[in-house]
């Protein structure tokens, strides 16, 4: 493909989509979270045995205490919006290479019973963007078909 500038010499450009298939391991910790999502429609967070805070996403080690976060507790499925982003900019999803449709709303919701600052991050179904605000009560809606990925959560819905 060429890239001719007015009057200037032709400058060669090569446009391509580079793609490499991946096998992403869940490991035991994220695996447990995703299995609970898929099989039981439960949001399970792991918990640091030392400082007691929850981790979402669940991670092997508590960064504050450098110990394995071995305990598990169910959180939500309701909670309150801690932060949100109304996205107008359309970007590619690097897991599929496809461009996302806009606008959409991302939200970080602190689920009920969460200890520490560990909101769950997902899409918010908000037909009226002007209603979105911090502190708004929301509920996790699970997808009908679930395959053990974050897509098993369809979105948050606003509790009217």
């Amino acid at each position: 493909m060429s890239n001719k500038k007015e009057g200037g010499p032709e400058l060669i450009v090569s446009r391509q989509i580079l793609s490499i298939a991946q096998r992403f391991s869940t490991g035991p910790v994220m695996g447990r979270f995703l299995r609970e999502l898929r099989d039981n429609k439960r949001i399970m967070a792991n918990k640091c045995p030392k400082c007691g805070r929850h981790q979402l996403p669940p991670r092997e080690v508590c960064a504050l205490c450098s110990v394995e976060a071995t305990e598990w507790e169910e959180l939500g499925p309701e909670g309150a919006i801690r932060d949100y982003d109304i996205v107008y900019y359309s970007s590619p999803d690097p897991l599929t290479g496809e461009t996302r449709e806009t606008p959409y709303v991302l939200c970080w919701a602190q689920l009920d019973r969460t200890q520490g600052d560990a909101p769950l991050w997902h899409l918010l179904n908000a037909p009226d963007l002007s209603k979105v605000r911090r502190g708004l009560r929301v509920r996790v809606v699970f997808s009908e078909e679930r395959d053990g990925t974050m897509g098993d959560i369809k979105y948050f819905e606003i509790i009217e």
Partner: protein
Amino acid sequence: MKKKNRNVAIIGSGMSKFSSHREEVNQPELIHEAVVEALEDAHLTMDDVDCVLHGNMELFEMVHQPDMWHVLGTGAWGKPGVRLTTGGTTGATLACAADNLVASGLHDVVLAIGFEKLEEGHATGGITNMADPLWGRSLQTGALTGTAAQKLIEQFGEERAKNAAIKMRIIMDEHAMRNEKAHRRLRLDRKYMKQIATQTPPLVGELRMIHMCSQSDGACAVIFASEDKVAQLGANPAWVVDHETVHREETLIFNSGKSTHRVAAERLYARNGITDPIHQIDVFEMYDPSAWWGVDWLGDFLLCESDEHVKMVENDQIAIEGEFPLNPSGGVQASNPIGATALVRVAEAAMQVVARRANTRCRVM
């Protein structure tokens, strides 16, 4: 503070032209521009350099181990080198590494090169790949977020926060107008402050195109030398006194706990006898990826407890003529070749310290 094994100074720097369109050069050629300028600035040839550092993000251009191909432009042929990469901080990491490598005694003259040719990839897509593939990758939108705006609006009210952000953007542009290397030089006019923001498309929440940094192609090269070499060369040194790096656990949530900026600043000030940063620091080059983050992070870096940083923007204290010039280069809002950006901050600060920037007026520390 611990004593360095030996003292280290910056003795020269160079930058390519920053632009979103550098189609006339390939990657090593873009790098070469910066390297040649840095060598000229330091009055050295490549023979004087005994180590070459390289840094960028592989997924931005999708070149694996790019320092290999880039040897064609870096000058590293037949020489030692190290490749380091830490995201937007890469350029600063390169500066820390160059400082360490010279101070260690392993090398006398180190050339640090930060690089990115963002036009060749998809910057937002590339940053989105930061997110865990099993957690937020299908959600994240690169580095675009409106959460910094939300925080400032909550802290200072909508009108004051929005005015501060756009005022900072205008000041950065005024600075960029004095820097011929800057990528975006928009000639923003203070008269139209209210309209400027709303005339550009919204990206995420209150973050609009005008607030966000550019996507630039560019390279920056900085030469670090030992104290002996500085004397031998009769160079005009900007001494590297100390550096501090602070990370955070990966949660992909914002505004959680004490910011890494504040922790880093506290440690650096404590070690170096800085008790009143606003008055003890003469010029500050900050990585400000957006005008919103710029305002917020200024408060963190200066350890502000209330609205001092907002006032500094409102009363033009951060302008070149002000008491605390911020980003006389125009900063990151003007130019952002990501892997080079933080090294540009170091290079610009060093130039200010040795008073090589003729068109700016800053006090020297």
